[in-house]
């Protein structure tokens, strides 16, 4: 993937998020291309060292994980993973915009 030429920064970022999912897909599981909840927790700890630092964010993430597994099979699909990161990212995006606007005033 990464060897493809001419990808934009945004496209490379999307590739990075997709390959991060596959990094945590359970190798031994019979169900392919899903992440176990325990692997998901590991991923959140390892890959989000800054975005989930304070306990409030961490609690929010726990709640997201609970709600996430919509079909209750204990495994996280790519769609569920994408929704989770979106849930973490949206409030951050808002915050950044607010801070920028305050700085401009």
């Amino acid at each position: 993937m990464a060897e493809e030429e001419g990808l934009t920064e945004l496209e490379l970022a999307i590739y990075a998020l997709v390959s991060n999912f596959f990094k945590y897909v359970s190798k031994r599981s019979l169900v392919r291309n899903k992440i176990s909840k325990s692997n998901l927790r590991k991923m959140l700890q390892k890959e989000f060292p800054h975005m989930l630092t304070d306990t409030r964010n961490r609690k929010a993430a726990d709640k997201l994980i609970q709600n996430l597994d919509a079909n209750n099979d204990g495994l996280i699909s790519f769609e569920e993973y994408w929704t989770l990161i979106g849930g973490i990212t949206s409030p951050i995006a808002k915050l950044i915009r607010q801070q920028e606007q305050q700085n401009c005033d």
Partner: protein
Amino acid sequence: MGQCHSANAEDAQEFSDVERAIETLIKNFHQYSVEGKKETLTSSELRDLVTQQLPHLMPGSCELDEKIANLGSCNDSKLEFGSFWELIGEAAKSVKLENMTRRN
């Protein structure tokens, strides 16, 4: 002297690939959401973003047109970050499939 680094500078160095990727997505969204209310994309801003920043990932323009048209039907033609994220998710899914077929 080495101990005088600001905490922020050190933090910035340790950002993970995932965090940097997320930052890039936010940055792109904000870069294009300049008209009116700055927390949303208009359909023309979305079109610019997709054609300029996602030339390899976004499906044919027909599908995109359809999405932009759907966008017009609600929310006064503005796309919030959450909906933008979902749209990018669609593109990411096509990467996923590509990835799987290459593996097999």
